[in-house]
């Protein structure tokens, strides 16, 4: 029982560390690492939280889900790394540099019409 508890808390901690890493780090590789850690933490919760079988084995259904999840995470990582490298090639830097948020200071189309009409 205590084993489950320890890994349940660890899972919660690792998933939120991963989420925090994703939010705070600007470098794309760390963002991808953060997502992976978030997934690992959730996998830990998925195995440690549901009730155990009488024999002490883990529930086979979440085990199958986590096996699927590991492969899915791997696929996502591969594609994300590929795109991140293309970002590095196209912009010279592996960061998300772009207009942050909504471009409100964009010259407005409406104002241009007005200028034209005058």
């Amino acid at each position, binding site marked *: 029982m*205590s*084993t*489950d508890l*320890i*890994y*349940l808390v660890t899972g*919660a*901690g*690792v*998933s*939120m*560390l*991963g989420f*925090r*890493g994703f939010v*705070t*780090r*600007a*470098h794309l*590789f*760390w963002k991808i*690492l*953060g997502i*992976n*850690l978030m997934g*690992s*933490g959730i996998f830990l919760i998925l*195995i440690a*939280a549901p*009730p*155990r*079988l009488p024999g002490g*084995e*883990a*529930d*086979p*259904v979440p*085990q*199958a*889900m*986590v*096996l*699927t999840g*590991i*492969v*899915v*995470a*791997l*696929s*996502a*990582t*591969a*594609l994300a*790394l*590929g795109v991140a*490298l*293309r970002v590095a*090639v196209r912009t*010279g*830097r592996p960061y998300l540099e772009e207009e942050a948020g909504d471009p409100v200071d964009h010259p407005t189309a409406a104002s241009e019409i007005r200028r034209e009409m005058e």
Partner: protein
Amino acid sequence: MSALPWILDGVVALLLIGLAYRLLDTRDLFEATVLYIAFGLTLSLAWVRLGAADLALAEAALGAGVTGALFLNAYQRLARRGEGRTDEESSGLTVVDDRVDEVSPAAALASYGVWGLIAGGLAWVLVTLPARDPILPVLVDAALEDAGVSNPITAVLLNFRAYDTLLEIVVLVAAMVGVWSLDRGSREFARNPADLGDEPILGALSRLVVPLAGLTAVYLTWTGAYATGGAFQAGALAAGAGVLLVAAGFMRPVTSAAPFTRALGVLALVVFTVVGLVSLFWTGLFLDYPPGAEYGLILLVEGALTVSIAVILVELFVDVPAIPEDDPGLRVLDPTGDPLGRVISPDGAFIRGAEEE
């Protein structure tokens, strides 16, 4: 004596947290990558402690092994890029995160405190949840007789929830097609082609290990029916052997251009779908294997899965770092107004890619 497992769990848990903290905190990408692999290996220890041997195997092979290899490979490409470019905008900086804001210790503590509270709250609601009886495991046990295999996890993966596994292969294929579509003009493998075959010792190791790995992969595929193992672990192992062959120069890096690669990559998808459709016309329900044929069909699907997973993983390993040609025209945000970078001739013909005109 009874405190010993408790101490072991505590050490593994602290290691997991510590590694996760450090790898997300460091600025050195190489350090982060290596720590990530260490994290994966520690995690597989945790799976053993949690009574999930299949996961331990998969985590070590896929989570730490293949994912780690992908990160290292991408790291190397990024680092090389930093060296190659002399302009100050990127020299050597790409593998060191230079965009971490300096924060005071108090601010850092506050940030970790808030996230820690969220994590603690998450753990708290789960811990205080009233215990319930196992529901699905009982059903799995009861249905295991008719499943064709005796390993409950394999039964869930390839019979009870086989549809999920079919879609899981679709995810893998989607990632592969996505990586292919990234327009990598240069398909150069991370290693310099001149070096290929220039590693006699690596070659000797490959000769020793690759046949063994192949044998073990076959064994794991087959043993998954009744014990720890299965197509995913086997596929990862076979992929490791494939990567070794490529690295040692015995095999040319395969790419999407080779029809054979594409065929093997989607083999599992074809076999799985056809098995599902045959069952649909036989028993009336998709993936409802005809009675008596369960074991044979599951083994067939598992075999195809092993092959496809191995091919796709080698493919991803070779292809992910193959980054596109640096077309200066495309570095401009919108070179021609055409998202495909096509330059349009007045008569509307499709002539050439983006160039600076």
